[in-house]
């Protein structure tokens, strides 16, 4: 595929991610932090995020299946998830985490049960989106071009 077209596609894709609210300014800052000393910074951080989030989401699902639900623990997990999502700028996940935390604080089982799939859903979307974005970037790099900022 044409390199320029690829680059353009990437920019468009990225813009759409911002516009649709998947990402926010924080992600831009993250990108700014990436430089020649640290060429894979964004990818590194985002994979950390995936790793961490999957662990947390699993724990959350387990916790909700328990007879006695430890809401304090759940709250801590969601707080973690909120922190990491806001760090990478995954704002939809973050917003949902805020709601989720409220349910945890209120010890609202139904709310939690409703919220968890939503968070999972949002997370998988953002994961897919980011992965496909990285893929695009990789393609550009492979084609010998540079990733537009």
């Amino acid at each position: 595929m044409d390199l320029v077209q690829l680059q353009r596609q990437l920019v468009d894709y990225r813009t759409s991610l911002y516009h649709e609210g998947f990402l926010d300014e924080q992600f831009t800052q993250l990108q700014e932090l990436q430089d020649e000393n640290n060429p894979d910074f964004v990818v590194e951080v985002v994979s950390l995020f995936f790793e961490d989030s999957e662990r947390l989401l699993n724990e959350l699902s387990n916790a909700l299946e328990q007879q006695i639900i430890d809401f304090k623990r759940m709250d801590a997990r969601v707080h973690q998830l909120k922190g990491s999502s806001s760090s990478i700028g995954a704002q939809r996940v973050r917003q949902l985490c805020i709601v989720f935390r409220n349910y945890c604080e209120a010890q609202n089982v139904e709310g939690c049960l409703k919220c968890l799939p939503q968070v999972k859903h949002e997370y998988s979307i953002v994961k897919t989106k980011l992965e496909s974005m990285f893929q695009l970037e990789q393609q550009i790099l492979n084609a010998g071009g540079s990733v537009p900022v």
Partner: protein
Amino acid sequence: MGLKLQQSQHQHQHQHHSVAVKVNEQTGTKRGYTFIQANRAWLPKFLLLWVMVMAFLSTWIYKKMDADIKVRRKEVLSSMCDERARMLQDQFSVSVNHVHALAILISTFHYYKNPSAIDQETFAEYTARTAFERPLLSGVAYAERVVHSERGEFEKQHGWTIKTMQREPSPVRDEYAPVILSQETVSYIESLDMMSGEEDRENILRARATGKAVLTSPFRLLGSHHLGVVLTFPVYKSKLPTRPTVEERIEATAGYLGGAFDVESLVENLLGQLAGKQAILVNVYDITNSSDHLIMYGHQNQDGDLALLYESKLDFGDPFRKHTMICRYQQKAPTSWTALTTAFLFFVICLLVGYILYGAAIHIVKVEDDFHEMQELKVRAEAADVAKSQFLATVSHEIRTPMNGILGMLALLLDTDLSSTQRDYAQTAQVCGKALIALINEVLDRAKIEAGKLEMETVPFDLRSILDDVLSLFSEKSRNKGVELAVFVSDKVPEMVMGDPGRFRQIITNLVGNSVKFTERGHIFVKVHLAENTKPVVDAKVETCLNGGSDGGVPISDAHQFKTLSGYEAADERNSWDSFKHLVSYEESRYDASINMTVPGETSQSVTLMVSVEDTGIGIPLIAQDRVFMPFMQADSSTSRNYGGTGIGLSITKCLVELMGGHISFVSRPQVGSTFTFTADFGRCKKASFNDTKKSNTEDLPSSFRGLKAIVVDRKPVRAAVTRYHLKRLGMLAEVAGSVKIAASACGKNGSSCGSKIQPDIILVEKDLWLSVEDGGLSLRMLDWKQNGQAFKLPKMVLLATNITNVELEKAKAAGFVDTVIMKPMRASMVAACLQQVLGIGNKKQAGKDVQNGSLRSLLCGKKILVVDDNMVNRRVAAGALKKFGAAVECAESGKVALKLLQIPHSFDACFMDIQMPEMDGFEATRQIRMMESQANEQMNGSGIDKGFARKGEWHVPILAMTADVIHATYDECLKCGMDGYVSKPFEEENLYQAVTKFFKV
């Protein structure tokens, strides 16, 4: 009773005392009932008891007083009675003595003389003439002792027979006692035998036996029918032996002298002489026979006060007879009104006192009840207030988060392809959102100030650049309105001051924002000078008057124009040119003089600035002026309709000014304008930190203009001074000319004579002035100039304008002005940029952000920083951000690991600590780290070794909290546990920079 009274008094005292104590304690204890409160049900009973006790007491008083009166009455009676008795006795004895003397007279002249020297006639005469000596005796008579054997001879000698009392010839007896001599008053008893009457005989016998005066018992006297007694005195013929026996006495007896005492008239007389005759009744009794008292004076059955009697003994010199005087009051003892009144009054007074005390107690109870109620209400109100503040803070905070989302989205939306209508809508929404955010911030500020949580920063900042920034904020608006916006800072104001730049900016923004809102024409003028400079201005004013205002340099074409910035009248004339120019000139002179020496004020630690914001807006209505600084109060409801705003800004401004140690005031005249003036205390910058911070914190003004010369052509002196101020800041030398002609002539002069003082590089011409001057003249002048000045570098002509149309711009170009027009409001940086363009001097200045970025890098480069966060993504991001600025970063995933890493000695320069972590949170970790450090410091100081090893003398690693929510409470908590500050998470460069500067000063 007295004891009871005392007790009750004591009780009352105790009650008062406890009230006082309680009031003092009230602040401490919320619910404390006093003695009165506790016994409130007993109060009426206390009152009743009091009344009863008092009634009893007053009865007692009455009785006591009454008894006293009676005693006194008795005493009076006794003394009166005794007095009377004594007098009676005295008078009586006087008479007796006289009779005694008469007896001696008779014995002398009747018996020792022979023949007798006394006959009836002589006796009568003598007694009559000495009667006054015996006022008590109705009469005296002498009876001779005649024994029966001598009767015949006696009767023959006297020529009459002895008769009995009944005036009959006396029967035969042993002895007779016929009266031979008698006073005329009793002459009727002559020749009567005194021994014929039983009483008299007894008397005579006793008299001659004792030789003393004796008395009969009382009987009715013959003449007067008054009660009386008869006194009998023996007369002896021969001289008696010294101690005569009774027989010798009887033998020696020659006769008897007798007199009748009219006791009734005697006592009557006597009493008549004494005061109080009417008050008492006197009775005199003969009590010789103790079973049968014979009355001598007074009536037996008299009414009168029978309850009280007094008896006085009377001694009339007759030992055989006993007399007594009995006195009593004529009237019964009157009711003692004094005692009654006293007792009654006492009762009434006590009743009143009791009632007053009762009333007081009731009042105290009521007041205390009220007090408790008030206290409760106060607590509730305070709680409500706190709740309100908290609510405001929380809600504002909660609103801000989604609002930021909305604004972000709107910004993104505006970046997309939109139709013009959509764009318009989106823009409107964005503007509204921004306004809402601003309002929320204000409310949050207000809540913080109310909660006393707002703390002032103390960092060095450049006041002038802040003012420039604020002005640039409003430049768009003011330009659209055609309002001139200008700032002037006196040279005396230090370049850098210590204070809170954010809050200072807020104050200025509020004031200028207000002014811009309410001003449709004229100007808004911000002026800053030292507060202590106001005084010399007044002096200078006086000077002007003396000089006669010889200000020839500035011709005023328009006489009725005011000498303010724009020519419109301003509310506070202190800002007009008249005083302003003196401030300027005064400062210049002082400035010049003090270049090489320290100005006294400079040595002090703080500097007080006076800032005034003058506008020519609609002003504040007089009635609204006193509530200008009250929150949510606007001049009237139409204000908010027409101009918007909540009216909270000025109240915040006032609070902020007061927090800065100053005060704010204003002068306002409706339809003329308002001038707000405030003072604020700032610290002076130390020279050391001065250079350092100046580089990083402020935008650097280019130095390439240093030494350039400029002429400012402006008819309005205040405006010219402002222009000059900005040029001066760029290091340029500026002169002011009142008109183009003057400026041109100055240049012209230069043209002809080289080596002159001023060779302007730039001429700045005010647009108003240029338009008002005839075009042709100016351009001609310009042409001349150009021809003359071939050999010289021609000065650039620059136009100054608030707003300019394209037509005007074309005209200006044609007239010889350069393309660039300096648009007002002027800012040093903007002027610099324009002049760079005009003069073609290269701009070596970097973009502001890069400078800061670079400085952050310089601060953090090579520093070893520990990042503590349990969230690995966050940790990675924070580490990445810090690494980007050149810091060496190490990470710890929990407080415990951090503690281990920070065991002393360590080589970390700073620590960024997440607050919410499992197991050990950020606060706890910090506390432990601080504890460790202080232990280490103590040890080090104690042992005194390795002083060189320790950095700055002791261990204290700066710890900054990383937190997503930046509410004030969290910040307080951070400081409390020993942290040095906080940064928001995720990092923002500016925020990070501000936090880090404090610790890494080079």
